[in-house]
């Protein structure tokens, strides 16, 4: 049968779209990264070879953004995972109105990160924010959350945790529900304690789901942009400048398109690396 004919026809629109809107621009970006591209003239003025990559790799600001992104991803995703697992276990029982209560827990992740950031920017406001009001009423220090160094980093992590813990909760709940009952019942009959069942039966069975949840969340957190754009603008100084924000800044604020393309290509390789790890270890169905 001439099935290849159908395959080509069915895949053509997808391939065309993905090629023209994503792949071709990436190749073009690679080309621009080897050149000088002043925004004012809006064209390639000079071929610079690998200069943009060398200055990127030599730039302390680039490495700072890498460190911040790494810190952000590791801390935020860890908290989201443990909190999400805690919530999943907590809600994994018969509760009156359980369905509604569980759905309410998902509201944050459906909002755009932008709206989430706006709400938190208001709540964390130094003077009129509710967080500082509560802190002050307990006679605790009320810092300028978004503009002083350690607090700004804590704040953006907090915002990400608030928005995405529900994702972990949702995925891990689905995992818990789909677990086979037999091993747990067998362990119960053998007199295992609750903790033992969780540690030696539930957790190992849940491992594939945990892997998918953490990897997807980490790859997403790596791209953090909206929170920073709304709350700290990468500040104070460059304290909360992530890799994506660094690239954005290079392009639209510092107007060095060549450099920003070089940094983009580095970011693409990083994400592809992480993604191939994901594919390699992703549990087979």
């Amino acid at each position, binding site marked *: 049968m001439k099935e290849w004919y*159908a*395959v080509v026809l*069915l*895949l053509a*629109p*997808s391939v065309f*779209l*993905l090629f*023209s*809107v*994503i792949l071709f*621009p*990436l190749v*073009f970006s690679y080309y621009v990264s080897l050149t000088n591209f002043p925004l004012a003239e809006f064209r390639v003025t000079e071929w610079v070879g690998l200069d943009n990559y060398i200055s990127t790799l030599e730039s302390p600001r680039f490495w700072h953004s890498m460190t911040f992104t790494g810190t952000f991803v590791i801390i935020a995703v860890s908290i989201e995972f443990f909190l999400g697992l805690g919530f999943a276990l907590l809600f994994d*029982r018969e509760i009156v109105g359980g369905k509604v*209560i569980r*759905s*309410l*827990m*998902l*509201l*944050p992740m*459906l909002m*755009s*990160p*932008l709206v*989430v950031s*706006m*709400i*938190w*920017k*208001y*709540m964390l406001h130094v003077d*009129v924010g*509710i967080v500082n*009001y509560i802190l002050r009423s307990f006679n605790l220090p009320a810092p300028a959350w978004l503009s002083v160094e350690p607090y700004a980093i804590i704040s953006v992590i907090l915002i990400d945790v608030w928005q995405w813990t*529900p*994702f972990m909760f949702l*995925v891990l709940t*689905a995992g*818990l*529900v789909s677990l086979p009952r037999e091993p747990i019942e067998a362990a119960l009959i053998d007199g295992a304690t609750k903790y033992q*069942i969780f540690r030696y039966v539930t957790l190992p069975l849940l491992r594939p789901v945990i892997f998918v949840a953490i990897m997807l969340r980490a790859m997403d957190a*790596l*791209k953090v*942009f909206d929170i920073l*754009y*709304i709350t700290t603008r990468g500040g104070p100084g460059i304290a909360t400048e992530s*890799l*994506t924000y660094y*690239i954005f800044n290079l*392009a*639209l604020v510092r107007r060095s398109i060549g450099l920003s*393309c070089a940094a*983009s290509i580095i*970011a693409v390789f990083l*994400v*592809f690396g992480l*993604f191939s790890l994901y*594919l390699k270890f992703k549990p087979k169905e």
Partner: protein
Amino acid sequence: MNYGKQHSLLHKTLIILAIIAAEVWILFPIFWALITSFKTKAEIFTVTPTIFFTPTLKNYVELFTELSFERWMLNSFIVSSFSAIIATLTGTMGGYAFTRFKFKGNTSLANFVLSLRILPPVASAVPIFILFNYLNLLDTYIALILVYTAFNLPLAIWMMMGFFSESLKQLEEAALVDGCNRFQVFIHIVFPLVKSGAIATFIICFMFAWNELLYAVFLAGSNTYTVTLALTRFVTIKRIDWGGLMAAGITSVIPIYAVAFFVQRYLIRGLTFGAIKA
């Protein structure tokens, strides 16, 4: 899971308190934004938050009288729905090809497609910005629709692959044996089976496009201001009008909450690219 043993009253109380704490942690910010959106400026700019106040719709009314919020909502709606429709249609075709036909490099091509979704948008936003400027496409609906379609397409393909692999292959084979051609089979047998899946895919693509900000920052302009881009303009003003901002935020979220209600069952698939089915 219920492990069967009877719990003490103390244990039960602690569980209930923990559940309440979790709900408060999640819901309080949304509640607080909602409350603020009904306050006047004077009630907002106080160091001690006002708890009791007469709610006013002023903030919401101003969105539509003093600003053109309905226009921005419309822009977002046009861009999101067109891109979601195209992504769902092409994704359905692509997903069908990947699940029903054996060809060389099938899996690796599907994985490669998925990897495009994981890419940081900022990496393609800069070159797209340059290329679309050459093509005079900046600040047009077409630009945003194209970009959101391509950005959602890997997700659509993978979601549809999940739905196709669950629908019965035997039905199609029977129809093929009975003399239908592939196209007839697709229209009469396959598509009806995955219709609800396609609707879920459409809605989830719509949500992602509606919530997107970064591409809009690069590609949209005064003619195509999306809701998200418009919201950023509120934030960058020196003295922020928190009431107006919260009203705008809430208004922008309403359509998403409305549609999300219908696709709750499919949210996990959408958010995990079909890796986890529930």
